């Protein structure tokens, strides 16, 4: 039975934003922790750690996000754990974000001039202090713009969680469309809502990048 697209349908879709936002924030927070570890491993003086981190990054950069979500969701159930779609999506996106943020932050850490490391070595600072007091404060500044840029990618990436059955913005749209059969209206609204989330962040990222270029001149 086909329903008309009314205020309830629109409200159902709009309220699904909270799940998109929550999933994005969860994956971003988890990815920030994972990415930090990956970035440190990738720039570590210990070769074995560098190789492990590099392998992790290559696997997650070299496969589609949808496959990663499938592997977590179906892989878990194959091993006898019943993950609900929310947990599976959160884990999959966290791993994905860890790899990408790890790579972005590795780049930022390596952009800090070698002389900064050498000065820190020469003063007798230990690894922890070198990283915390000398390298990270400079690397973080460099990484802000691409990090916010990746957050935009991540928000859009959460739409794939619809396919493993997690009801976020995209899946809410599918549900409403199945009832109203007004795909252009429904997905137009869904698209506009993603845009409303992502566009300000893209602006912020561009602004941060301009500020950095100005500062380095």
């Amino acid at each position, binding site marked *: 039975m086909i329903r008309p697209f009314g205020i309830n349908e629109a409200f159902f879709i709009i309220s699904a934003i909270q799940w998109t936002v929550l999933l994005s924030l969860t994956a971003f927070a988890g990815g920030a922790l994972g990415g930090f570890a990956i970035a440190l491993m990738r720039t570590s003086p210990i070769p074995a750690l560098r190789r492990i981190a590099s392998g992790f990054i290559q696997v997650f950069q070299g496969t589609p996000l949808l496959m990663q979500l499938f592997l977590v969701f179906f892989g878990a159930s194959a091993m006898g754990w019943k993950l609900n779609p929310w947990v599976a999506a959160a884990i999959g996106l966290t791993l994905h974000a860890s790899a990408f943020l790890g790579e972005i932050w590795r780049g930022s850490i390596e952009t800090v001039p070698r002389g900064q490391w050498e000065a820190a070595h020469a003063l007798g*600072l230990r690894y922890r202090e070198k990283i915390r007091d000398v390298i990270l404060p400079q690397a973080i500044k460099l990484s802000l713009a691409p990090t916010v840029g990746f957050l935009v990618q991540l928000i859009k990436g959460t739409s794939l969680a619809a396919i493993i059955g997690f009801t976020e913005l995209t899946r809410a749209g599918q549900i409403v469309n199945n009832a109203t059969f007004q795909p252009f209206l429904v997905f137009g609204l869904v698209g506009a809502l993603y845009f409303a989330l992502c566009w300000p962040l893209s602006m912020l990222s561009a602004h941060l990048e301009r500020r950095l270029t100005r500062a380095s001149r």
Partner: protein
Amino acid sequence: MTIAAETVDRAADAMVSMEGVEKWFGTFQALHSIDLSVAQGERIVICGPSGSGKSTLIRCINQLDAHQKGRIVVDGVEILPGSRTIEAVRSEIGMVFQQFNLFPHMTVLQNCMLAPMRVRGASREQAEAEARKYLERVRIPEQAGKYPAELSGGQQQRVAIARALCMHPKIMLFDEPTSALDPEMVKEVLDTMVSLADDGMTMLCVTHEMGFARRVADRVIFMERGRIVEEAPPEQFFSNPQHERTREFLGQILAH
């Protein structure tokens, strides 16, 4: 037995002792069997053409570059490549770089306070008092609150010297400290180094400032292709160099 004991004694006497030190970068040999002994309070100037290994030599002393063969002993402690206690040795050795390498996100004062607080466990008040004392010493106390980017090259290099001095190093290594400076700023940095030398600091300076070498060096060392070619007190080094290559080199750099 006797020989071994003698070696140990010599190493213990010297502030820095290098014996048969060799260093490769891949297949390129940067240092060939370097023997060098530096007594406490001695001032050594190392010169030579670019790529001769002079920077590598002093960078091996605090292991910014790890040597592959030979022995390096600093103040009685043998430096082993990859050692886990290298930080302790480094904290006793001050280093000043060609490019200053101040920490750009910290003020001048913070640059000087970081290592004493983190490595020596100094309190903030102690570290600040020391930092101000050494900034006074290099004659820029008024710049304490500024960031490195706000200073001239000469001022930055003097801050770098103060930052190293705040750790009360036993030795100071200078790696071409005036090479990146505009000519009018060279003097202020050299003056600071001279006053440091007058206070009896043990110094190894890689530099082409021959006026400085003449004035403060106890010994001048000329290096070429990773070898120490000539080693003499400055009066002898400049007036009567023994090796053809030294004469050529001095001819080139003193000509203008």
